[in-house]
């Protein structure tokens, strides 16, 4: 701990010395009077300091979520009659709550205090430092210690998606989506004639009474579906805080979260400087792995030169593929075309919300028009081959652009 005179004490000392010096030089005792209050306050300066001050800082969060407060606990003991001010000095893209002061009289309580910080942007972030300042009663002496906090992996704030896109043809795995096939679910599918071996508890008595023969209710089978999210991390353009990269991260996180909550199997393909993927799976731990990959990106993994054909291992047959992309990378557009040709149901969420800057000249304006036409052509060509492209601005829920596709099951066409 570094001990020093406080700034307040230095100012009092200046006032005292200046007053006394002027009193001597000018032979005017009123200047000595001006110095008197400062001198009296300085006399209370304590020589004794706490022998051992212990500061413990702990955070339980290994992973934070963008925009959500994360608590840290700070415990201090041995402050011995000194007020302890505790403040979190946040690093870049982190905001912190107001600091707290533990008064000297509560030193023997030895309780931990809680401070909270909030990451304002996803990523692998440095939190900042906890600054503990001990002050004596007259605020003349200050002891300060800075405790560096560990880095935290901050997941993107997931976009809100309350509904989900369901394919008409689902793999035969037990899940929560009502399939076309009849099975052991709870959603009513129809009525048919009883055959020996059927369960008697499913007999539909009104239908049986009307027709005179035994009839029973049938129910839709409940199936899971495989969903693969493609996150295009190759471009980062647009308004600060709502860049294409931000939108891809948030959209992908929200989609994965929604489908995993619905007990679907979710995989992720990250496309950026390279390609990295995680095959479909379920569960909280799997979600953690997906978020880790989403935040760290594909750097250092497979080279992107082979990107036009996405990895077969990450794409189970019949999977629903949702791609978040600004569609600025031609290779990814080709890869999406290839997926459609391979029979996958693909939906593209376009996150491009800005165009190239232009200086107002005619040539620049013409270039911008051509660029816009090219972008429209790319989107049109995808729509033409059966890949719906919806636009999302990042400010609304994902339900809004996806509404046409979440109301009914998407018919799978091979």
């Amino acid at each position, binding site marked *: 701990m570094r001990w020093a005179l406080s700034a307040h004490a230095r100012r009092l*000392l200046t006032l005292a010395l200046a*007053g006394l010096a002027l009193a001597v030089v000018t032979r005017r005792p009123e200047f*000595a009077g001006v110095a008197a209050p400062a001198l009296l306050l300085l006399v*209370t300066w304590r020589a004794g300091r706490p022998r051992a001050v212990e500061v413990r800082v702990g955070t339980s969060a290994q992973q934070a979520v963008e925009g959500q407060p994360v608590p840290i606990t700070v415990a201090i003991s041995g402050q011995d009659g000194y007020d302890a001010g505790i403040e979190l000095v946040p690093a870049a893209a982190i905001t912190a709550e107001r*600091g707290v002061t533990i008064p000297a009289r509560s030193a023997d309580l030895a*309780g931990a205090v*809680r401070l*909270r910080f909030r990451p304002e942007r996803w990523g692998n972030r440095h939190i900042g430092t906890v600054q503990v300042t001990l002050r004596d009663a007259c605020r003349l002496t200050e002891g300060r210690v800075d405790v560096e906090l560990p880095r935290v992996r901050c997941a993107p704030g997931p976009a809100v998606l309350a509904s989900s896109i369901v394919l008409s043809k689902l793999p035969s795995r037990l899940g929560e989506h009502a399939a076309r096939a009849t099975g052991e679910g709870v959603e009513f599918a129809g009525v048919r004639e009883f055959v020996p071996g059927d369960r008697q508890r499913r007999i539909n008595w009104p239908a049986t009474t009307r027709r005179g023969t035994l009839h029973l209710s049938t129910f839709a089978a409940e199936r899971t579906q495989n969903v693969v999210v493609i996150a295009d991390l190759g471009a980062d353009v647009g308004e600060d805080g709502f860049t294409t990269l931000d939108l891809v991260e948030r959209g992908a996180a929200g989609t994965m979260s929604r489908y995993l909550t619905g007990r679907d199997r979710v995989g992720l393909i990250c496309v950026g400087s390279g390609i990295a993927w995680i095959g479909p799976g379920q569960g909280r731990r799997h979600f953690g792995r997906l978020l880790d990959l989403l935040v760290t990106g594909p750097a250092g993994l497979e080279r992107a030169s082979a990107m036009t054909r996405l990895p077969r291992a990450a794409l189970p047959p019949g999977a629903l593929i949702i791609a978040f992309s600004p569609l600025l990378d031609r290779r990814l557009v080709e890869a999406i075309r290839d997926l459609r040709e391979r029979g996958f149901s693909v939906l593209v969420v376009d996150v491009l919300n800005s165009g190239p800057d232009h200086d107002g000249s005619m040539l620049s304006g013409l270039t911008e028009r051509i660029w816009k036409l090219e972008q429209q052509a790319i989107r049109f060509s995808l729509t033409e081959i059966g890949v719906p492209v919806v636009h999302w601005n990042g400010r609304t829920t994902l339900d809004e652009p996806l509404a046409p596709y979440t109301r009914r099951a998407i018919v799978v066409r091979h």
Partner: protein
Amino acid sequence: MAASDPNPAGAPEAPWQPARIRPTGRAALAAAPLAALIVVWAALPVPTGRSWTKIALIAAIVTAALSVIRLAISGTPSGFRSVALMSGPARAVEWVRRTVRALPWAEGLIVAVLGLEALHPARPWHTGLLGLGLLAYLFAVHLAETDARLAVLRPQLPLLAAGIGLLALAVGAAALPALDGGPATPVKVIAIAALVLVAAIALPFPGAGTTHRDG
């Protein structure tokens, strides 16, 4: 340093309230008019002829303005970009900002204002009120800098009252006609003794505290 109530670790979650940009509260608002007031008070009557008085007045105005600016920018984040990555004007602004934050303008203001007062003819009651104004300014700056409540000054109230009593005594003594213009030897002696006392207090004391850092 902030000064809200401690939030025990086991307490229920409070709504998110990000830290305000310091300095906050009435103390910061009080510091600026107090600085202006003490400069004006020390300058009255406005100097017309003597160049030293003018220099002291300019120094007082500059230090008062910069001390208030320093207080205003002390809570703003220092910026996350490296200076090397900044453009020329931005780099210059950053340099000025850092300089203003680094230098002790309040101390300069104290010296300038007292010097300005000393350049005027003797007027004990005027100087006494200036002393009170300087004290108020120093406490306002301290409260604003540490974002503390007024209640933290409670332990110092008896000493402060005694000091103001001494100030009143000194002003009263100066106002006595017998001392006016004389050699004031007792004042000299007391002043020199107090100077020695203050110098003794200011000597660095070896710190005994040790700290365990824990991630």
